[in-house]
Each structure stands twice: as structure tokens, then as C-alpha cells.
């Protein structure tokens, strides 16, 4: 036990588990909420890019002024309704440092002005005389300097309501945002849970199945053994991934279905190992002795054969988890998992599907990719330590 506690991987795993449990609770909002503009970079890179700014035109505040010292922002959104004292034709205007003005919205002789404009709207681009493929932000924010957003005519007074303006920044949080503007760090923390949950439960289930089948087949022998081993052969003869797809189609793609599906196709190896272990043990003298003493098969199996195979089993579990985690990631990558469940595989699938690789949005790719491999490495290391404990010959550097 002490050896395990000394392993760095063990503490890494504990860290992951704690982060998985407590991490997401530190966020007030749900992970699905859009927090910043899509593909925002992490806060700690390119510190000279623009921040997020929000203003509101309210009663007694008919214009706002701000300093702009950056490149054009990724997006601007303006929304809300302002009510006026009298019927008037009002418009909302942006004035740039060069003194040029751009009309953002207007009404047609009403007592109110309702605005719902987004820099991505096709109608907005058309209104500025741009093509659908131009970036309107370059038009709105051509230079650095003092910008004004105001209502026109200047004597207009807002009675009630407000017009909100939000200039999106291009940086957010620890790990930036994804294609929907969701916080990648939040998603990353949520992904830990799924990866661990799927990995561990699928492996445990598979091991349980494998051990039972292996013990029974190995000990009972005869017809039972033949039938069980033929079942193993059948399962081995069916290509895994396509069948997973078929099953996912029939059963649905929820988390537990995924766990069951993954474990159904990964217990055969354990079953074979345990069977052959049992086979050689049952011929050993001490088991033969027990049998001669009249011990029941179930007693022999659980009292002697199982403990005998326990160390190798534990190692098997630890080594099996990475396979399950990687299988989950692979299925998610092929789009075969429930998109509402946020896992690292899912994140990579979305990053790939929505073009993070070509955009160079590394903050969407590296965290889940490295996360998966770190968890896998930790389990592998743990597995190897357990293996070495079961079989001291394997211990590194013992020889010579």
C-alpha cells in the first residue's frame, strides 16, 4: 500500500477525482451557458486583445463614450427597448474617432425604439453595405480612440427601459471558450466525471463478468467450459466497433447504455486469463488436496482461486480503465454518444467537427486530449505498480 501512496500517479488521480467532484460546483451557471464569444482565447495569452465591455443607454444616460485601444472586437450585440416621452423618429448611432457615424438602428415615428442587432446578422452586414463574407467589426471599429454610442436626435430623452450594448472580448477564463462560447475549463472539469465514471464502471462490470465466467469455465470444465468459451469466441469474432454502433442504435446512447455496451465487449480477455489461471491452479497440489478433503467447488473457487488471482486482477482493472476511457472517446469522436453528456471525447469530437483543428484553437483540443492521456497514464502507472506488487520480478531495476 505504501508503494502506491508514493506514486505520483496515485495523487494525480486523487486530484482528478476531487476536481471532478468539486470543480464544477465552483461555477454558478450551467456549463451550457454562453459566457463569451465563440473561440475566445484563454485570458493568459495575447494580453493585448480587447476585453468584454457592456453598456446600457438608460433614462438620463442617452449616450455612452468609451476608449478603444485594440483591434476590432469579435462581435457586438445590441438589444432592448427604450421608451420615449413623445412620438419621435429615433435612431441609434455609433460615432468613431474619425468623426464618421454609422447608424445601428432606428424606428419609424414611434414612442419607443426596439433594437435587436448582432454583428453576425446578415441584415446588419447588408445594412453596412458589406458582403456576407466581410467582417462588420472592422467597419465599426476602424481605429483606436474615443467612440460614442448615442441616440439621435440629441434632445431625445429616454423615459423608461434600456438599450444594452455588449462588445464581446476575445479572451475568456482559464481555457477560453468553445464554438458556442461555453467555458472550456468548466466543460473540462465536467468531462473528468464522465471519463472516470465510464472508465471505472465499464471496467468493473467487465471484470465481474470476466471473473465469473473465467472461474466457472476453468473450474467446472466439460460442457460448461466449452459453451462459455464458445460464447467468448463468438464475441471475439464480432468486430467490436460496428456492433457498438448497432447496439447504440437499438438501446440508445445514454451513459449507462454506453457502460454496458463497452463492458460487454471487453470481458473476454479477463475471462480467458482467469480461466487459464484457474486451469493451472486446479491441477496444483494444494487444490487437489482440498478436493480430496471434500471441499465444495464454490468454496475452493472463492476461498482460494479468487484470492490467488486477485493481484493480477487488480492490475487488470487498472490497466483496463484506460482502454474503456479511450473507447468512450473513440465512440464520442465518431458521434455515437449522447451529445448532452459532456465528456472529453465529446469535446474533441466537437472541436474536430466545428473546425478547431483548422482554426488553430488549441485550447479546445489540448485540454481534453491531454486530460484523457493523463488519466490513462495515471491508471497505467497504478496498474504497473500493482502488477509489480503481484509479481516482484517485474520491479524496475531489481536485476544486475
Amino acid at each position, binding site marked *: 500500500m505504501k508503494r502506491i501512496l508514493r506514486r505520483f500517479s496515485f495523487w494525480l488521480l486523487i486530484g482528478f477525482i476531487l476536481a471532478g467532484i468539486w470543480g464544477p460546483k465552483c461555477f454558478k451557471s450551467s456549463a451550457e451557458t454562453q459566457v463569451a464569444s465563440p473561440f475566445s482565447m484563454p485570458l493568459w495569452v495575447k494580453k493585448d486583445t480587447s476585453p468584454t465591455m457592456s453598456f446600457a443607454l438608460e433614462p438620463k444616460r442617452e449616450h455612452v463614450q468609451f476608449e478603444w485601444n485594440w483591434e476590432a472586437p469579435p462581435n457586438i450585440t445590441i438589444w432592448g427597448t427604450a421608451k420615449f416621452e413623445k412620438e419621435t423618429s429615433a435612431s441609434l448611432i455609433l460615432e468613431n474617432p474619425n468623426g464618421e457615424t454609422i447608424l445601428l438602428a432606428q424606428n419609424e415615428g414611434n414612442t419607443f425604439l426596439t433594437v435587436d442587432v448582432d454583428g453576425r446578422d446578415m441584415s446588419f452586414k447588408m445594412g453596412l453595405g458589406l458582403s456576407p463574407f466581410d467582417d462588420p467589426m472592422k467597419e465599426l471599429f476602424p481605429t483606436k480612440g474615443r467612440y460614442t454610442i448615442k441616440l439621435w436626435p440629441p434632445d431625445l430623452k429616454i423615459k423608461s427601459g434600456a438599450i444594452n450594448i455588449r462588445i464581446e472580448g476575445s479572451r475568456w477564463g482559464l481555457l477560453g471558450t468553445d464554438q458556442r462560447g461555453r467555458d472550456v475549463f468548466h466543460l473540462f472539469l465536467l468531462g473528468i466525471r464522465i471519463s472516470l465514471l465510464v472508465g471505472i464502471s465499464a471496467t468493473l462490470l467487465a471484470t465481474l463478468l470476466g471473473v465469473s465466467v473465467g472461474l466457472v469455465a476453468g473450474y467446472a470444465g466439460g460442457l460448461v467450459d466449452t459453451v462459455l468459451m464458445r460464447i467468448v469466441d463468438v464475441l471475439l469474432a464480432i468486430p467490436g466497433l*460496428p456492433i457498438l454502433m448497432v447496439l447504440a442504435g437499438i438501446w440508445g446512447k445514454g451513459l449507462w447504455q454506453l457502460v454496458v455496451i463497452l463492458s460487454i465487449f471487453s470481458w473476454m480477455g479477463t475471462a480467458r486469463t482467469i480461466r487459464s489461471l484457474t486451469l493451472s491452479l486446479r491441477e496444483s497440489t494444494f487444490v487437489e488436496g482440498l478436493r480430496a478433503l471434500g471441499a465444495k467447488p464454490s468454496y475452493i473457487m472463492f476461498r482460494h482461486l479468487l484470492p490467488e488471482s486477485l493481484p493480477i486482477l487488480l492490475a487488470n482493472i487498472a490497466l483496463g480503465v484506460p482502454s474503456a476511457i479511450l473507447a468512450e472517446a473513440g465512440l464520442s469522436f465518431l458521434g455515437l454518444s449522447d451529445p448532452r453528456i459532456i465528456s472529453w471525447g465529446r469535446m474533441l469530437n466537437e472541436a474536430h467537427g466545428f473546425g478547431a483543428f483548422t482554426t488553430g484553437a488549441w485550447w479546445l483540443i489540448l485540454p481534453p486530449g491531454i486530460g484523457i492521456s493523463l488519466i490513462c497514464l495515471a491508471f497505467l502507472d497504478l496498474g504497473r505498480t500493482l502488477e509489480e506488487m503481484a509479481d516482484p*520480478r517485474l520491479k524496475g531495476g531489481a*536485476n*544486475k
Partner: protein
Amino acid sequence: MIKLIKNYWFRRIVGSLVVLLVVLILNFFLFRIMPGDPVSTIIDPHFSPQAKQHLRAQFGLDLPLYQQFYLYVKSLVTFNFGQSFLSQKPVWEELRTRIPNTVFLLGTAFMLSALLGIWLGVKAAQKRGSALEKVVLLAGSISFSFPSFFVQLVLLMIFGWAIPIFPIRGSLSVPPPSGMAALWDFLWHMTLPIFSLVLLGFGSWAIYVRNLMIKTFSEDYILLARAKGLPENKILWGHAFRASLPPIVTMFLLALPGILSGAVITETVFSLHGVGKFLLDSILGHDYPAAGAAFYLLAIITIICNLTADFAYGLVDPRIRLGRKME
């Protein structure tokens, strides 16, 4: 004694045939309990339900299930897999254009990663406690821990786009060169996919072989060989490695059928024309003849590998060879 062995192998082969039959039956029903059929996925306002009915009849989907099963078994036994629903081409022809790519890709990658892994594993086991062993262990773990598509996409971005020295799609240039150049062109296209698969695959081999070899090294006869003062290389390759070979061969044969799953993702990322993608598309499109044929061939390959693996194991462990005689 010979009779017994014969008997065991006879039973083993019969058992394999039973397995094959079960797989076939499973395949037949698996596709048919999956809701939907190849015609139902055609939704086109210009394709009336009446026209769909015609199409169903042409696919033989309106026949009773037992007749469909009869036709299915017949097609597999005669190796005349019929025509794909989706492409209307003979399934065999569809497979034939894809098999060379997949076999070359997976075969080469599998061989290379196994050879590299085995060599590294043996070396690591030989030099216990050295930096080499640590590097092999770490590299092996890392190789095993990364999701395949992640590694492949990153490689594609680096060597296909940032430093464009390798092609980003397919198995040949367009238009293709002729003569010897065509072969080089093919190899050039396959380099990146194969490299990525080797990178992903060698790790588990290296670790497996290292562990195996270490166990062998502690056996008495190796100690004896050492005591006799035999040259180290002879002990390593002539004794220890030879003793570890049967389990390695077994592992090799057992892992062989499983590599096709990896083909699906590799073929998707590198836009390769192969069996993996074909299988996926056939399943998604409910193309029963195509998917059935692919599954059938796979099952045969797997069963042959299993039998061979058993045989290889039987060579080393007489208890297995004698089967279940001590009852």
C-alpha cells in the same frame, strides 16, 4: 496419444464452425432488429411511398423472414454476396477495391508496431533499471494513452498543413503518376497513416514483451545458461526470447482481428478508401448484404486466428493440448 490430439483438434474445429454459425445468425437478426430499413432512410418529397414499396420489393425486403434468411445463408455459403442495396454494385466488388488499402495499411502498421514494440521490450528487459528501460516504459505508456484520432489529427495538421511534406488525403495523387512512380506515390501517401498507427500501437507491445521477458529471465534455465557463461546475446535471443515467443505469437494472433476497429477512425481522418469506413456506412445505411458480407469475412479471419493461437499455445502447454482429459 495422437488420437487424443486429433480428437481435441477435431472438436476444436467443429466448435469453431458452431461459433461461425452463431455469428452468422446473430448478424442476420442484429441488423433486422435494428429499427428502420434501407428504404426508410430515403426521404425525398419526390419519392412517393408507392415508389418506396417498389424499391423494397426489388431489395427482397418484402419476403418473409425465413426466405430472407435462406437467401442470406445461401449467399454466404456460395460466397456470392449479392448486390449492395446502397450502390447496386456487387458487394464483392465493393470489398475488392477496398481490401488492398486496408490490408496494406493495417498489415504494415501492425507488423511494424509489433516488431518495434517487441524489440524495445526485449531491450528494456535486458537492461533492467537503465535509462532505456525507463524511456521505453514511459514512451510505451504515452503511446497507449492518447486517443488515436487526436494523434492522427495533430500529425495531419503538422505534416500535412504546417509543414506540408505529406499529402492530406487518399492513397494516390490526382492525377496519379505511372510506373514505378505510382508505387512511391502510394507509399508516400501511406506514410503518415502508418506512422500514426505505429506510434499508437508499439507501446502496448513494448510493455507486454518487457514483462514477459523479465519473467523469463528469472527462470532457472536462464540462470543456468548464464552460469554456463553463454554469450549474453545468445541467452537473450536464443533462450529467453525463444521461450517467450509462444505467448507473443498468441497475443499477435489474438490482437490481429481487433485492429480493424482502428481502421474506421484512421480511414475517416486520412480520407482513405477502406473496409472500416465501408462497414460503418453499410451499417448506418442498413445495407444488409454489404454489412453481412464484411462481418462474415471478419468472423472467418477471427476464427482462423483464434484456432492458430490455440494451436500455438498448445505447443507450449501440454495440459491445454490434452484438452479436458483429467475430468
